[in-house]
């Protein structure tokens, strides 16, 4: 029976290829993701191992609480550089050096940053201890004195500097003039994953790169014969409560782990996208095998009549799917590795150069690809295979095999129940303000619609097919053909429906949120201009002070973000200038004295106050990132802080002093500074002043409200573009599904096509009828996907409408049009091969086809 399977595959090469391609795309995406992330992981692992290889112990600030913020572990405090003297006294310590590591940008002759596209730029110190310095001098001398510096080779090459040149570096507190004394390289690549590095002699680095005089850690090299653990134990004894010491190995692990987490999220997102493609592929496989079984009904019945057992028939069909699955997985695996190569090249083109590492293809990647690819293929063909094995031998003698229309009562009941559960859950989520039931309800609705497909198709085709009248009889034929087998049409449209549902859901919800953000920017942002540094906060706190001194500036505040522990729970807090915050942000009413909030005061929003039964003057026990434990009194209660927090939470506000005094260097920088003009100052005048001040910060952008909204919209378009590209894969699989179904249907209707041709249908009329059918199938998936996606987004948006004022569902007509155009293109492309096949069919052969 295996031979039968093999012959079937060889006999239908194009069909097998298309079917395999659907799975191969999903597997390829998944394998590519694995290879890419494994390669990145390995590159970073090697990087950190190289950097820390000779360091035996690391002294660092002790985090008073575990914080999990977007900017990473900002809760770990910096430590006093003076601590190094105590560490050096410890027995077994050969070398101990303080290490400064902060943001610093090297500027070219025009004052622009050399590192482009958000590549990291760091300032650090040159310790002169080879085991601790991660770089080696390639050219020139190590840095000396207050202004001597070394730069990494890549940066020197880009800027065209030579040893002895004067150059400028932008730190978070200002621009400094330095002299290039040497060029350093890291390892063999010369670059640290694309980061630009400027290093100064330790005292100079402490002076220029550290605003607080503190350092990020102290690196320790032990004497020979002293184990890392022994060293750690001894150093621990001399440290204050605010510091801790870990082994060099532990330090490498910690750093690797934080990168691993980042890569893990990246991997997860990409894997989900791969999975969506695979599910789309599963629909396609199910449908294809279903049709094939239908067409081979008589052949299978004949086999049964000739004495093969049900098991043998089942094995033969499953055998075919196993071969297809293996083929698809191997194809996907190879494609995935190629994809990873391409992505790595792309990343390096964007400046994120990884150290020379070949793509890493782990056994896990291979095994996962094969298991997932073959598994999904076999699983999807299981139902059709079982159906095939149940064909009675007598079917061989029957004239025409009639495929069941798939409209059983059981199906109707299951479909309606699933739909009702889904809709019910969505409504419950939308009214109760819970996201989870709203989102999972959409999955129920989707499943319900899939099950109800055969019932929905005839109705929808009637409506959607109406415009096809303009195509005359061929259009009508296409329309009639697409509802002739509702079950087949429904499962063909399912793959497209999946992709469209997800795209629509994400697009409509992000559009709605963006539009709400924009309207709150309009209403609640009282500032005239906003300086932003993008995702990574790089604006120095000095910028706020500088602006505050300008006569044209009426009010200014920065917005800092960090975590503190309040009453035992880690909370996200925002640091603002209390005296001006109300002039910049409309908090919708404030009770108490926000402007008077000092370093021991905290402001909370009404919701938090109500939840925790807090009133003005109530005291809260807090732990700050540097370990300080104190009480903070509620100085003010405001109605809504969403505008301060850019529409995230905004439950707690503290004075900028709290950040300045208790937060580590890495949390000192801001990503937003908002400015309001003084009375009588024109927007142009204000802009001139603000842009002048912001010039010190290379990544700063100055925006007015319109530009903020424009930036939001652009960001949205970029997100949607990405989404379309990533989920484009599922769309392609949907198109493949339509093409395969049509090709199989065309084969099935050979006689009919022959008849049409013999009574005078032209080739183009036939092609038009196939295209019409294809467009309808694509439209089916699109319309259902749009409907489900919009319903899901509406439920999710509605569930959040209590939290975000002015949030409502927005379904822009342009989005619907774009989706329709894409769907029609898919329909058009999918019909090309089947249409061509139908059109060029030999009339006589077709009409006499058995």
């Amino acid at each position, binding site marked *: 029976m295996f031979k039968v399977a093999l012959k079937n595959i060889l006999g239908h090469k194009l069909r097998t290829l298309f079917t395999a391609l659907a799975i191969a795309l999903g597997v390829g995406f998944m394998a590519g993701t694995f290879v890419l992330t494994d390669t990145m992981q390995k590159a970073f692992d090697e990087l950190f191992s190289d950097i820390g290889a000779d360091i035996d112990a690391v002294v660092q600030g002790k985090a008073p609480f575990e914080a999990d913020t977007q900017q990473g572990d900002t809760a770990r405090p910096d430590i006093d550089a003076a601590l190094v003297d105590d560490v050096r006294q410890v027995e077994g310590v050969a070398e101990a050096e303080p290490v400064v590591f902060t943001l610093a940008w090297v500027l070219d002759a025009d004052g622009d940053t050399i590192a482009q596209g958000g590549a990291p730029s760091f300032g650090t110190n040159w310790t002169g201890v080879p085991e601790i310095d991660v770089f080696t001098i390639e050219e020139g001398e190590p840095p000396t004195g207050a202004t001597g510096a070394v730069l990494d080779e890549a940066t020197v090459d880009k800027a065209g500097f030579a040893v002895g040149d004067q150059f400028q570096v932008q730190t978070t507190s200002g621009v400094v003039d330095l002299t290039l004394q040497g060029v350093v390289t890291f390892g063999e690549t010369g670059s640290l994953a694309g980061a630009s590095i400027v290093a100064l002699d330790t005292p100079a680095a402490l002076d220029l790169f550290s605003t607080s005089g503190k350092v990020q850690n102290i690196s320790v090299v032990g004497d020979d014969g002293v184990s890392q653990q022994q060293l750690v134990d001894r150093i621990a004894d001399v440290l204050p409560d605010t510091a801790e010491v870990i082994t060099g190995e532990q330090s490498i692990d910690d750093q690797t782990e934080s990168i691993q987490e980042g890569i893990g999220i990246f991997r997860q997102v990409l894997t989900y996208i791969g999975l969506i493609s695979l599910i789309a592929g599963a629909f396609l496989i199910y449908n294809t095998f279903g049709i094939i079984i239908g067409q081979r009904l008589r052949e299978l019945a004949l086999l049964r009549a000739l004495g093969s057992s049900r098991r043998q028939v089942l094995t033969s069909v499953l055998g075919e799917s196993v071969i297809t699955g293996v083929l698809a997985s191997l194809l996907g695996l190879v494609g995935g590795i190629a994809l990873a190569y391409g992505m790595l090249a792309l990343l390096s083109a964007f400046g994120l150069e990884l150290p020379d590492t070949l793509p890493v293809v782990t056994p896990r990647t291979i095994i996962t690809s094969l298991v997932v690819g073959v598994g999904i293929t076999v699983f999807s063909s299981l139902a059709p295979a079982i159906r095939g094995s149940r064909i009675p031998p007598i079917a061989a003698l029957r004239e025409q095999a009639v495929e069941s229309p798939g409209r059983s009562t059981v199906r109707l009941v299951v479909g309606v129940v699933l739909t009702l559960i889904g809709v019910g859950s969505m409504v419950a989520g939308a009214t109760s303000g819970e996201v989870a039931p709203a989102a999972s309800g959409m999955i129920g609705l989707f499943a319900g619609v899939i099950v109800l497909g055969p019932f929905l198709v005839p109705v929808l085709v009637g409506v959607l097919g109406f415009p096809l009248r303009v195509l*005359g*009889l061929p259009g009508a034929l296409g329309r009639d053909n697409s509802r002739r087998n509702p079950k087949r049409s429904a499962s063909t449209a399912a793959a497209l429906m999946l992709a469209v549902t997800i795209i629509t859901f994400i697009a409509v919800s992000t559009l709605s949120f963006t539009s709400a953000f924009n309207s709150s920017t309009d209403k609640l942002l009282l500032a005239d201009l906003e300086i932003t540094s993008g995702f990574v906060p790089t604006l120095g706190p000095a910028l706020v002070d500088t602006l505050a001194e300008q006569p044209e500036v009426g009010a200014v505040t920065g917005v800092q973000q960090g975590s503190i522990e309040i009453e035992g729970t880690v909370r996200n807090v925002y640091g603002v200038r209390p005296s001006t915050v109300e002039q910049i942000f409309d908090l919708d009413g404030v009770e108490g004295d926000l402007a008077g909030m000092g370093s021991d005061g905290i402001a909370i929003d009404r919701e938090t106050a109500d939840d925790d039964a807090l009133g003005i003057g109530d005291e809260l026990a807090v732990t700050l990132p540097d370990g300080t434990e104190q009480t903070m009194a509620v100085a003010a209660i405001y109605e809504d802080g969403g505008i301060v927090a850019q529409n995230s939470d905004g439950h707690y506000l503290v004075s900028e002093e709290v950040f300045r005094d208790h937060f580590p260097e890495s949390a000192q920088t801001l990503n937003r500074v908002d400015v309001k003009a003084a009375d009588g100052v024109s927007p142009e005048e204000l802009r001139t002043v603000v842009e002048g001040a912001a010039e010190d910060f290379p990544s700063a952008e100055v925006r007015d409200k319109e530009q903020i909204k424009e930036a939001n919209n652009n960001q949205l378009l970029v997100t949607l573009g990405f989404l379309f590209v990533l989920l484009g894969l599922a769309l392609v699989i949907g198109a493949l599904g339509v093409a395969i179904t049509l090709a199989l249907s065309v084969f099935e209707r050979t006689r009919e096509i022959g008849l049409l041709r013999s009574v*005078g249908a032209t080739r183009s009329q036939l092609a038009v009828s196939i295209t019409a059918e294809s467009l309808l199938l694509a439209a089916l998936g699109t319309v259902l996907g749009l409907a489900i996606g919009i319903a899901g987004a509406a439920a999710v948006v509605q569930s959040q409408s209590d939290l975000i004022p002015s949030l409502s569902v927005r379904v822009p007509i342009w989005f619907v049009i774009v989706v329709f155009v894409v769907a029609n293109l898919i329909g058009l492309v999918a019909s090309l091969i089947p249409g061509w096949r139908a059109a060029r069919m030999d009339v006589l052969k077709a009409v006499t086809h058995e």
Partner: protein
Amino acid sequence: MTDAVTAAPTIVARAEKATKYYGFGDTAVCALAEVDVAIEGGRFTAIMGPSGSGKSTLMHCLAGLDTLTSGRVLIGDTDLSTLSDKQLTLLRRERVGFIFQAFNLIPTLTAQENITLPALLGGKDTDTAWLDQVVGTVGLGDRLTHRPSELSGGQQQRVAVARALAQRPEIVFADEPTGNLDSRASSEILGFMQAAVRDTGQTIVMVTHEPTAAAYADRVLFLADGRIVDQIDGPTAETVLDKLKSLGD
């Protein structure tokens, strides 16, 4: 009626030295060997012959469904070998009617739509009065909105006959039109075809292997081994059967 037979008949379709080989070289099989035949207008011509005699091939070539290896076929004055696929298609749509043994109808279209299919394909209106007459003749009046699956085999063939006649084509080709029908339905269908020839001067060419069917024709052509070997005018089932027997010997 009678003057159609006696007056010098017009030739509606003609094959001249029609030769058809299937395959190439040593394995080539000769299906038609320099066949000369003229189909007279307003007459019902049957083509008969044993399996493999080339009767279907002759009809397919006459109808423009198949092409000759050499020789030529004309419908009216049109040499089919000079036509492009598009022109052939239009010829089939406008000047030729077809009735096949089975699978004559498009399952998604109603009986009415199937009957007017060639006109619909050409985007033309059908002559309603004529259509009513044809539909009335084949007795389908109340079945026009039904789909083929809701019709019996005999009714389906009646729809096929109506379609072939509805365009008033120059010539109708019928390929074993009663091959799948019982005797009663067969005689109905053949009766309609005969009536169409007698009453309206329609030209019909029918391939069949049944002597009783051939008896409805005005003239029977006998093919064997790719050649026309004999013919009978005004056949009866008996004369046809006798002739077939003699051919078989």
